[in-house]
């Protein structure tokens, strides 16, 4: 009876403020960040001299909680973020996702700046224009200049919307590394550990397919031979490692100006094994640092790239009786909706943390202000502290 509906200990607003304050206090002490305020004003002067700016967005997915990341007991899981990236970042300690907490639909919402309502498990495009469509249309950029590297079957439509003013062939090219691998290894079974899909229903393991188009991407665009790709894949341990390998190849060969990478390893938490969830966080932390290293070392990206890292959302709180702690993101409680975002690189002030609540939908208009497009349909607002 009682367990159907149980009362929280504090109001959502109080909890969200508490989480933000915890992150801020930690960042002040451990990473020596200053507290930002409106007094600091904008970063406009920093933006003035960025030639041919590029933007990379990494979603730190699928869903990690403070206690395994920024809380004192979680810091050991994100050494690279803490040591290498946060000190160079402007950090927002309270980013609220008010939409549907499914990974595809939440990522689509991040990419459109509108809380999308498409079925999380159906292969459907977002209903509102994506950042990639705004970017390409407003700036007349070719298809090769906007890419999405995504983890699973469900994300194959995220590059462009069903919006009538945009839509087919106006958005980003989407690369699904697992499809590439499946196509490259049509006959073999050697790479099953890299082909895991859809953690939200652990038992549902859909058949992945790869075809000639994927193989064409591999050879023509990424300049990878089948053998090189397969032999490198053999050295990797997770789908996100495979994604980052493809990202590095994309950066080297095509150097897109707008690159979106969706991490997903952490979502193994749905299987209920805490150790695997922690492994996923640690791996994602390392892979974020790897991408930043690539940004710094690739001539096409060095000194002109702004990197955003943010989770699509969190996971359920331990003290919400309606959930089962870290395992899922089903309750819609405050912890699962309240996350963070860091921005670093070109045009970004280093070592500052802001407490004020942002909305997940603020990302796209902010990208627009940085890159020069107008996100006409977005519900969010540009983040002034980054502009």
């Amino acid at each position, binding site marked *: *009876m*009682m*367990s*159907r*509906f*149980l*009362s*929280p200990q504090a109001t959502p607003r109080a909890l969200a403020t508490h989480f933000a304050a915890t992150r801020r206090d930690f960042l002040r002490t451990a990473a020596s960040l200053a507290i930002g305020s409106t007094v600091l004003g904008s970063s406009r002067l920093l933006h003035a001299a960025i030639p041919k700016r590029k933007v990379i967005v990494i979603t730190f997915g699928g869903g990690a909680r403070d206690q395994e990341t920024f809380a004192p*007991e979680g810091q050991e899981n994100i050494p690279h973020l803490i040591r290498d990236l946060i000190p160079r970042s402007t950090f927002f300690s309270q980013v609220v996702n*008010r*939409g*549907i*907490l*499914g990974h595809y639909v939440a990522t689509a919402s991040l990419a459109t700046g509108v*809380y999308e*309502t498409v*079925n999380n*498990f*159906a292969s459907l495009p977002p209903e509102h224009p994506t950042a990639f469509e705004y970017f390409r249309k407003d700036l007349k950029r070719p298809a090769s200049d906007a890419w999405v590297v995504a983890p699973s079957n469900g994300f194959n439509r995220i590059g462009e919307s069903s919006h009538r003013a945009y839509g087919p062939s106006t958005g980003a090219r989407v690369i699904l590394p697992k499809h590439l691998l499946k196509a490259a290894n049509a006959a073999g079974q050697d790479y*099953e*550990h890299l*082909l*895991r899909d*859809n953690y*939200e*229903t*652990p*038992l*549902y*393991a*859909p058949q992945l397919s790869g075809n000639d188009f994927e193989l064409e991407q591999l050879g023509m665009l990424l300049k990878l031979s089948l053998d090189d790709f397969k032999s490198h894949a053999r050295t990797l341990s997770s789908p996100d490692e495979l994604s980052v390998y493809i990202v590095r190849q994309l950066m080297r060969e095509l150097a897109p100006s707008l690159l979106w990478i969706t991490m997903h390893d952490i979502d*193994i938490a*749905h*299987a*209920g*094994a*805490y*150790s*695997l969830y*922690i492994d996923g966080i640690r791996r994602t932390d390392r892979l974020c640092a790897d991408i930043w290293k690539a940004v710094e070392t690739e001539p096409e990206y060095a000194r002109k790239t702004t990197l955003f890292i943010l989770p699509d959302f969190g996971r359920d709180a*331990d*003290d919400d*009786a309606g959930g*089962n*702690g*870290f*395992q*899922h993101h089903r*309750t*819609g409680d405050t912890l699962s909706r309240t996350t963070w975002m860091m921005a670093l690189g070109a045009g970004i002030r280093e070592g500052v943390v802001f407490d004020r609540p942002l909305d997940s939908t603020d990302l796209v208009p902010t990208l627009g202000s940085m890159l020069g497009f107008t996100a006409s349909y977005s519900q969010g607002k540009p983040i002034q502290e980054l502009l």
Partner: protein
Amino acid sequence: MLPADLKPELFAAYPPQAKKLVASYVPTLQRLPLAYVPSLLREVIEYDFKFPAERKALEKELANLSSLSPEQTKTWFQAFSQIQLSSELEKSDWVNAPAQFVENLSAHLWTTHQLDAFRTAALDYADRLHAVVLPEPPTIPRLGITVIGQGAAPSEEPLFRKLRPHGAYFTNIKPQGGLEALLKACADRAQAHPIPYGHWYIDGGDAAAHDSALTCVSYGGLGPARGALSEKIRSDIERPGMGPEALRTLMARLRPADLGFTAATDPVLDRFQVKLLTEGSGTQIFSTTFAQWAAREALRRAQPHTLLVRFAPRQRQKPMNEMLASGRESADFDPAASLVDADMGAYYNWLNLQRLTGSERSSSVVWFEGHNEAVAVGPALPRGTTSDASTSVEQLLSWAA
């Protein structure tokens, strides 16, 4: 159809005891909003297969609803009444398939951005209910025991980090005969206080020898059911149109007979075990997930006075198809990772025990099986302390319980 249209004959397909129960409350249900009623019926339709504590709670909830005046009913359910539902939801067969309705309602609430409003309505209702329908207190203080780390070497990471601030940490436990002592303590409590489904033993591997007074569920014992479920999943996944949501719906419909349970001696426990496998996420493949989820569900539903949960090594992570296919004999185990899983599971067991009535008197003990470390939390134990005194498991229990 709306609740106002309900008639007793619409419940004809309900199991016998559920049908009898709901028959007295049809006029009450007619006064309630559709956003609420199916979630109640989802419990009612399972009444025949519920544990005594659940039955009592449901009976009290229904009695309370029928005692509300029209004005009170309006006040209690105003927020639910404001939830906008779709015509598809209204037209669905929510009387006979309330769980399906609730699943579709959840999707509808997310999609229409009404989840927060529903959550507020639900919490408000729960608060009102708590205020007038007091949960049954336990007849003896509850005791939760978690045994972790079977087969694992001492961890490099400190254990019990989340629990130590709440109780006493012991570093010099004498491990000999520890498991037997714990099982005996549980059996003694069960013998002294015979309460149906009041004393549980859950094992993530094969159950050790135990007193028959304990309600026992084990991952090893469910091996044939897990095998049957794997076969069903493998064949269902290949059917056209199958997706994660359809698979979940199909699994929710499975009954004990579908998974090879025969000649039911305890239909309530059989149904409970099937739900662990069909509604739990990961319980079919990782024994650590199974043990944690089984404990959570036993505490939530049966509200036991005694619960012993023993974690066993889980299989190493592999591709899903391989994990579904592997039998226990052929599995490649990962004791070190399982210790991490179980340490968190022990914390969740404590949290879930704290949610039950009488939590101020309840106690928890967690022991690293075969080793010297344990933590005990209870009213008689000082918080945040450490003891390096040589201590037997029996002594530990006597201080905790």
